[in-house]
């Protein structure tokens, strides 16, 4: 099982690095942000696998923080760095 956890963690890390292509190529800023969001989810999964492989439950807390902060960054992006077009405000 140990080998499986590590192999899957490696596989997910490869996924993450492949997704880096979208950060570099864009084309829109939202695409880059989206890729960063994907990294957040993928690293949560990697952390869960590493926590199980190393038998370190403390890593689950790190995963929890990852899950929370990916959302914070994305909201900061939409509210601050990517404002709506003219004469548009939030419909909420």
């Amino acid at each position, binding site marked *: 099982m140990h080998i499986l956890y590590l192999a899957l963690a490696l596989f997910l890390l490869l996924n993450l690095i492949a997704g880096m292509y979208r950060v570099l190529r864009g084309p829109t800023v939202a695409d880059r942000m989206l890729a960063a969001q994907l990294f957040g989810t993928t690293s949560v999964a990697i952390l869960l696998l590493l926590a199980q492989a190393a038998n370190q*439950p403390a890593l689950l*807390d790190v995963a*929890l923080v990852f899950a929370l902060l990916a959302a914070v960054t994305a909201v900061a992006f939409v509210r601050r760095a990517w404002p709506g077009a003219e004469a548009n405000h939030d*419909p*909420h």
Partner: protein
Amino acid sequence: MIVNASQKTDPSHPDSSDRPDGHRVTRYVGSGALRLGAFALVWWALTGGAVDSWLVGLPTVLIATLISLALVPPFSWSLTGFVYFLPFFVWQSLRGGTDVAWRAFHPQIPINPGIVKYPLLLPPGLPRVFLINTVSLLPGTLSAELEPDELIVHALDTEQNVLAELKVVEQVVARLFAISLKNGERNRNVQTN
């Protein structure tokens, strides 16, 4: 303690009318107790059941309950609706995941995306927010924007019957929040006719 809490977060004074206010207090107490239990469960999971942690945990859970009551006032929901919703949601997200994965793996990328407008029957507020988040996780649909009376959905495959699926989802969410949509539908028809 809980009764105090509900009175504190209650914005109106108890001098208006007697019966609705008493009703409101029981609502606050009931949902406060429920949320207290839920937050206690979360704290227990976070700390791994350590006994000492409750010294900090008890006040934290209480404050979290008070804040949640202040931010989201009690709403009606039904247990059977919830029991019905969970397997529906799990099954649909399984379908949604496999659907999008199949399209991503397919050499030709068989997608036919487009914007679909769905006339909403659900009342505004929490049920709609919940519907939006649910729709985004379901097969082939992604809620994009909420207009006053309709939901703008991006569909991955417009050839599928997206509207019918959305109708089912809306019914399930309505059942979760103990709302009957038939009523709303009739009202709507009266308005549009």
